[in-house]
């Protein structure tokens, strides 16, 4: 290779962003309508905090508690799935769902230990909307939880101050994305859905703010969760 490469002029970060943001908003305008449906349905701010409201807290610990809450939900879900497997669960499905259960339990316990005395309490899930005897219901819920988890971590990354916690979030989110892909592929094998509706026409996956995510998952938790002190 004989060519020497001259360094092209460096655009400033803000110039780069301006270009990207303009394209992003123009091109994702149509997508927003499609992805917003499930979220908007539950979009009420819990301003009134009763005494038993679970406050996630502030700063990096708040974000870690936010992740801990989501992992509690996922771990509880898959634990139930494998305790009462749906009819005709195949061996492959059993392996995949058991692995995912174990990964989510590890995530849950990791955050619990990392948070120590700052950890929120164990949450009580509400899975009344899920029919655990029905494959379609279970895999549909699994897909929702995994897609939500990925979008939550994607959106929380920029709120983290400590680079070590950012790396931990990065280590976990790609595993959640691997789960999401596998679950979508169980529902519809070798189709587009393994990396489908959660990705806009710029090849970027959803990144949602904690308030959007918490509104979406609140129906699956008995306790009221508040993210009002989380960084924005």
């Amino acid at each position, binding site marked *: 290779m004989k060519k020497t490469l001259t360094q092209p002029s460096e655009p400033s970060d803000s110039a780069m962003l301006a270009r990207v943001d303009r394209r992003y908003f123009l091109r994702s305008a149509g997508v927003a309508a499609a992805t917003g449906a499930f979220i908007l349905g539950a979009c009420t701010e819990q301003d009134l905090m009763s005494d038993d409201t679970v406050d996630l807290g502030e700063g990096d610990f708040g974000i870690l508690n936010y992740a801990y809450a989501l992992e509690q939900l996922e771990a509880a879900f898959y634990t139930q799935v494998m305790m009462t497997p749906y009819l005709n669960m195949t061996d492959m499905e059993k392996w*995949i769902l058991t692995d995912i259960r174990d990964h989510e339990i590890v995530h849950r316990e990791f955050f619990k230990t990392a948070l120590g005395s700052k950890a929120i309490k164990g949450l009580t899930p509400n899975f009344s909307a899920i029919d655990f005897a029905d494959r379609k219901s279970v895999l549909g819920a699994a897909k929702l939880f995994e897609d939500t988890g990925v979008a939550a971590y994607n959106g929380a990354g920029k709120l983290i101050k400590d680079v070590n916690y950012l790396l931990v979030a990065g280590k976990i989110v*790609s595993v959640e994305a691997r789960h999401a892909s596998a679950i979508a592929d169980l529902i519809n094998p070798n189709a587009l859905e393994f990396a489908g509706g959660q990705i806009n026409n710029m090849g970027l996956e959803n990144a949602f703010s904690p308030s959007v995510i918490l509104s979406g998952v609140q129906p699956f938790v008995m306790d009221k969760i508040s993210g009002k002190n989380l960084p924005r």
Partner: protein
Amino acid sequence: MNIFRILDSIQQVDGDAAGRLAHTTRRMFMNRIGSSLATVAVPTAFAAVVNKAYGATPSVTEVLNFALTLEYLEETFYFQANRMTNFIPAEYTLVFSQIERHETQHVDFLKGALGSAAVDRPQFDFTYGGAFPDAWTNFMTFITISAALEDTGVRAYKGQAGNLITAPAILEYALQVHSVEARHASLVRRIIGHLKKDPMMKGWITQDQGFPPAVYKGATPESNTVHAGLDAATLSGIGSITRDNVTEAFDEPLTMEEVLAIAGPFIKKMGM
């Protein structure tokens, strides 16, 4: 720091590295495809050179050009494969066209963000300097490279997240690409598991198993269990969950040097 000066250096300083690498890798690859085990580490020669040429913390532009180079690599790989007749089995054409679509979108996105600072598309050699001579005739070789590229992509973006912490909006975009690569990796790996009837080849990475080894090892290997100073393998609440499962639950980063050492042999000639 200029990643392309590094790639230059690899070829100038150690002209023989590609040859040596091709030799060891080919042998290993045949072992792997033929039977089971691969033990030798791959591009230590490249890693050594890259470490010499590597400087300070990269700028946002350098991170994005680094990402763009990887996306060019992936896009070109799938573009060629998807246009060959009778190469990708019919049941997987949707999967690989979807992956190509995303890689093209990532290239366009990064080029748009970089503007005139964007590097040009390099010329690629998917035989990896002769290490994968049947990359375009044997689907198993193709899909093995595919998984390696996707898993490398996941680790590469993860490794750069910290360098973008001061540019939060760009960090978010990088994370949004990162998870898409992980979705790709998961399915490609599962297809390999299906074709090889190997239940241990899952959508997630067990220990640091995988081929080529350099993709799964490194300064923080995929088998690592310590995160932010906490060892996830010794958590009291995980009960009988195995160490294998604990390693699967966390993906690990690669440094820019490690990624360039892996990607280097795919790059025949830089663009421009």
